[in-house]
């Protein structure tokens, strides 16, 4: 199993590092990749980096490398940042969300909680607020991708409608 974890770029996200540690401990044979964020240090990095041979951690992978790692990943575990959610949904990549919470100083406000809940409702993507259930879900993940074609068609339909109305708005200004 090949899992990509991404913590986003703005604030430290120590809880994601804890998830990586626990999955690494229980699945030593899995290939795990963790993009911890440019400012990640100490608690925002997994403590088992050297113990786990198949764990690849970097603050920020270069764009091309990230792209390749994303392609290879069978499952993505991400904070609820819009960039990653767009990417996962557009490519129909199976993914789980762990939103950053303001109460834990993981973000300025709780918009990630709202986003994750809204996306979960619209597209049926699992969202987690606690670490243990997330770790369990990763370990027991059914290796079944979301129906790519249906998802892509739904997104394209939204965008076509949006594009039409946006263009007439611009023309009317």
């Amino acid at each position, binding site marked *: 199993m090949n899992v990509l974890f991404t913590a986003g770029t703005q604030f430290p996200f120590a809880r994601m590092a804890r998830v990586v540690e626990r999955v690494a401990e229980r699945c030593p044979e899995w290939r795990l990749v963790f993009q911890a964020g440019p400012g990640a240090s100490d608690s925002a990095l997994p403590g088992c980096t050297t113990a786990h041979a198949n764990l690849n951690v970097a603050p920020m992978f270069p764009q091309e490398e990230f792209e390749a790692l994303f392609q290879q990943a069978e499952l993505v575990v991400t904070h609820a940042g819009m960039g990653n959610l767009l990417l996962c949904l557009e490519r129909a990549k199976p993914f789980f969300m762990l939103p950053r919470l303001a109460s834990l100083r993981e973000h300025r406000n709780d918009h990630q909680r709202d986003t994750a809940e809204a996306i979960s409702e619209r597209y049926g993507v699992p969202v987690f607020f606690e670490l243990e259930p997330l770790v369990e879900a990763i370990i027991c993940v059914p290796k079944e991708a979301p129906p790519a074609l249906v998802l892509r068609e739904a*997104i394209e339909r*939204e965008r076509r409608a949006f594009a039409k109305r946006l*263009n007439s708005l611009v023309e009317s*200004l």
Partner: protein
Amino acid sequence: MRILFAASFGGHWAQLKRVSELLACDERQFVSTAESQHTSADYYLDDFSVREIWRGILQLPRALGIVRRSRPDVIVSTGAAPGLLILFAGFLLGRKTIWVDSIANSRNVSLSCRAACLFATRVLTQWPELETRRVRYLGRLL
């Protein structure tokens, strides 16, 4: 038609690129932040939050310079504060401006969106539930 697109790097930028693909125009120019992290924009501002507005005000001359040089017919921003600053510069220079609030704001529109309501030509949300007389819903990226 020449459109100037502005957003800070990250999720706002990811949405801006997609919005730009939806709009038919002759020329697209881009303003972003985090110049050290990517080279895909034509102009750059330093990142700041709408809560530290003084850092924005200090960059207003730069924003005005960007709008003057790119001479857009329309300016579109998906946020956050640096995008708002470009829209404001556009407003001062008499350009048409459109704010598209991030799809991440599903419960409330952002503080920057409320600020954009004060001067932008049109203000859009990507959630129909948040539509008001001023903030319109025309569709969404997801």
